[in-house]
């Protein structure tokens, strides 16, 4: 493992017990991120993008969820082995998360200031506990609040909310969708995280607002040296924002490559299908390519490569064996038997 690896997910398996049986939602996810990476995680609805992110933060509801195999190494430590207390500290210190829907993630009853203050004070509390014990005194509550307030205003400026001192006293409903998303980003940044996980941060937004938010994320990456895991189903968003991209299908990563490389030279049949399904400039009438079939039932997933029932180039081995990782070029990996040396 290279020195500067921040996050390394290895062979992660996650399942949910339901009425219909056991849904094998993640079946061997491999993903690694270096410090400073901006990695896009793409895939269709239900393929497990959110679940992968939630596993890193250990926020999967258990039960019904259960991680049956795998490791999630963060800075070389396995997150899955931490106690709940350690986990809380870990989340506060190292992770920032933004979720898809900015409306439901802000409490309509509290002002933006109160919610941001809470986020900041909570982080201070967790980070301060050790420090305070060391110094042998606790800073006064007033002083803490003053510091927190200054930090909140800084954060609001950082995410580009104009007139921060005034608007901070407003309530979520007085903010537009784009502004709320900025607040959520500010909240995620409250603890100076090493890793920012953004789960579909622009899906609910308009194209022009989406452009603003993506530009903001890029800016923050340069300014704060963040590492970002950007989850989206929009390949265009990835092209605009990320350096590397991982494509997921039905609970597994199927291809991983630098952005330009992936779009120029997709290797997995699923990735190729996805790219062709986008209406491009010169697609003829009625002739959009689509990937035949539908995503598999995760209670009873196809054996071997999970994509094989929909794959035009399916081989015998695909039905039997899970494809391993094949390296195609620098930083370009694909999980497909077509590329194995010994099929």
């Amino acid at each position, binding site marked *: 493992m290279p020195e500067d690896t921040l996050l390394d997910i290895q062979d992660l398996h996650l399942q949910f017990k339901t009425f219909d049986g056991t849904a094998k939602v993640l079946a061997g996810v491999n993903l690694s991120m270096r410090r400073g990476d901006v990695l896009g995680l793409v895939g*269709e*609805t239900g393929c497990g993008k959110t679940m992968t992110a939630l596993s890193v933060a250990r926020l999967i509801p258990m039960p019904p969820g259960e991680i049956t195999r795998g490791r999630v190494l963060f800075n070389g430590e396995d997150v899955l082995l931490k106690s709940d207390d350690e986990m809380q500290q870990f989340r506060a210190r190292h992770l920032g998360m933004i979720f898809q829907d900015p409306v439901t993630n802000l409490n309509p009853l509290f002002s933006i200031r109160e919610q941001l203050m809470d986020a900041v004070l909570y982080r201070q509390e967790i980070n301060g506990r050790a420090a305070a014990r060391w110094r042998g005194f606790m800073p006064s509550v007033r002083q803490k609040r003053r510091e927190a307030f200054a930090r909140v205003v800084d954060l609001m400026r950082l995410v580009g909310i104009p007139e921060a001192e005034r608007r901070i006293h407003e309530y979520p409903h007085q903010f*537009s*969708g*784009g*502004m709320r998303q900025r607040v959520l980003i500010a909240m995620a940044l409250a603890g100076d995280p090493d890793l920012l996980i953004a789960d579909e941060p622009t899906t609910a937004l*308009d*194209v*022009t*607002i*989406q*452009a*603003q938010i993506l*530009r903001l994320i890029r800016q923050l990456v340069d300014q704060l040296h963040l590492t970002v895991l950007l989850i989206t*189903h*929009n*390949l*265009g*968003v*990835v*092209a*605009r924002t990320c350096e590397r991209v991982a494509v997921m299908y039905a609970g597994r990563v199927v291809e991983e490559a630098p952005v*330009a490389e992936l*779009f120029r030279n997709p290797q997995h049949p699923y990735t190729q*299908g*996805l*790219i062709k*399904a*986008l*209406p*491009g*400039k010169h*697609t003829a*009438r*009625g*002739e*959009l*390519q*689509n*990937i035949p079939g*539908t*995503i598999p039932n995760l209670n009873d997933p196809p054996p071997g490569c999970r994509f094989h029932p929909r794959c035009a180039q399916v081989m015998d081995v695909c039905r039997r064996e899970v494809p391993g990782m094949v390296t195609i070029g620098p930083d370009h990996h694909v999980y497909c038997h077509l590329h194995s040396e010994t099929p």
Partner: protein
Amino acid sequence: MTNGSPLLEVRHLKKYFPIRGGFLNRRVGDLKAVDDVSFSVPRGKTLGLVGESGSGKTTAGKCVIRLIEPTAGEIYFDGVDLMTLSDREMRRRRLDMQMIYQSPAASLNGRMTIGQIIAEPLWIHERLRGRQAKERVMELLHVVGLKDEHYYRYPHEFSGGQQQRVGIARALAVNPRLLVLDEPTSALDVSVQAQVLNLLQRLQDEFELTFLFISHDLGVVRHMCDDVALMYMGVIVEVADFETIFEEPKHPYTQALISAIPEIDPAASREEIVLQGELSARQPVQGCPFAPRCPANKLDICETIRPELVEIQEGHQVACHLYPAP
């Protein structure tokens, strides 16, 4: 009613929603969701209505088939002004114009089976039921690429793409001539979107349908539409055929929107114009509604006079002071 006339012609359509507030919830103002919009759709063609959230696309689409009552305007469908029809006449007219909704799951009654859902318009308009109705429903299921066994299932057992197909089958049941498609694929994944778009185009050719295609996704619009109308805060700011819109956009808003399409082809993406600010809920009282966000060099009159939609070329209309009428 010659064949040369457009199937749908909308003139000066307005829809104001009351803004209530203050003491006793009085009407304190109007939200001009659609403010004096005119367009027409030729037979068998597709007009794309594009704009950001809240620009009034859905409202305009629903007004056109009187699903919501317009505040003012004329809507000529095949030469007849729909606004002059009584409720009852309008109900009977509905077999000519149907709508496909943005959220496929929410537009299907979860307590009815697929068979019952598709048979409903057959009963309402033709009093078909029992065996006859079932045969027609089966036919329609096949037309949209579903199978016999789906007849007895409930909507929640289907994927989004299949639910949208059910919606399309229901709309086709009465042989409509106009389909209003309100973001029919925005809830779907790309590969499923491709299936539904292909289906729509096939049906359009087969049944000579006319589409009013509402979307905020310019990539999809480029693929689907013959003409494109861009809406911003309740007004149309630019209309042209799709090639002109994409190759030579004139209005600064159109230019920004097109530059913001997230293209994956590095060759296709152009210099990104990031607009400042956001769509606010209410229009400025006077001047161009886009003026507060306009990145172009603004003229003085932009703040004071609302620009009219003027034809700058054959079939290309723009509402912007930078392009005065020739």
